[in-house]
């Protein structure tokens, strides 16, 4: 029974980690849309990237990774730095990009 429980736990954990992750970064210096396009270009070079959203208003860069994949924090920091900006914080959530976009649209109204 213990073995069965352990196997179920492992499978459950694996299924959770296999889900696509939403990475939300607080980025400083983003004041110009023309220049900030480099952030999206830089992050999309990563093969794990599925989608990217950048908000100047919220100082927010959101990356959706492909299922079962993640981007390590140092890689994220380097991608933001290559675009010429500073990543101040990062967190991982399970928000959908649709929800993120809806929130940003509402914030800009």
């Amino acid at each position, binding site marked *: 029974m213990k073995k069965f429980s352990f196997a179920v736990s492992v499978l459950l954990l694996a299924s959770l980690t296999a889900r696509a992750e939403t990475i939300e970064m607080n980025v400083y210096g983003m004041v110009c849309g*023309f220049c900030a*396009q*480099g*952030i*999206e270009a830089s992050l999309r070079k990563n093969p794990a990237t599925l989608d990217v959203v950048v908000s*100047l208003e919220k100082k927010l860069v959101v990356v959706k990774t492909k299922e079962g994949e993640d981007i390590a924090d140092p890689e994220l920091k380097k991608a933001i730095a290559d*675009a010429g900006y500073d990543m101040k914080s990062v967190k991982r959530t399970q928000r959908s990009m649709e929800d993120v976009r809806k929130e940003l649209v509402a914030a*800009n109204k």
Partner: protein
Amino acid sequence: MKILPLFATALLAAVLVSRPATARPVLYADSTSAMVEYGAGDMKEAAVFYAPEYYFSFGVGRVELDSPGGGARHELNYARVNYLAKRWNMEAAQANIFFWGGAGKGKVDLWVPAGSVVPPPGAHDHGLNPGNTAGYWATVESNGWNAGGQIDYETRRLYALLKTDNYRSQAFTMRTDTVQFGIAPYEHETNTLATFFILSGTRSSGNAHQDEELALLVRLFKKRAWFEAGVTTEGELRASAMFSL
């Protein structure tokens, strides 16, 4: 005829000190940007820059300039390097210090009316329309280099820039100082059009060209396209565009 090379050098000075036309000499790592500029004085220019890093770019360009009377045709091919020395990324603002340097080779086809002397380069009076006078075309080439720098500060509402550009050759010295202040009527987003109204003041000094110019410009940009146009207090048109490829 020794004065003729000075015309080519003057052209080189005028072009090199006017770069970069765009607000940001370097965009981001692995970016390529193309720039075109049009001036009402029959000026056309195109340039391409590549940035291997977010703090460094290099590129080449070509400019063609005809004098209003048609008495001179200018061409210039140049190379330029831009360097971001320092950037401050603040929560809702950014400030930068850039330096740049360039070198180029210019060619001037100058109409010299028969029996007249070549005008001094500072005056840049290229004489009479060749169709109405007897004379000959003189072609001269010249080399030169320049160096400059700028400091800028930008939010989504405000823009400020101080820029200096210096040109040197055996024949000429020229310096152009620029100050710009801009204001945006609204805060743009990455997927919306940005609009800035820019007041631009320029003072040129040196033995090649002395001038003071005040211009009101409208700057628009969205995604990969950047456009700026306006008029000087003397009613001259200024327009430029930049595209990130």
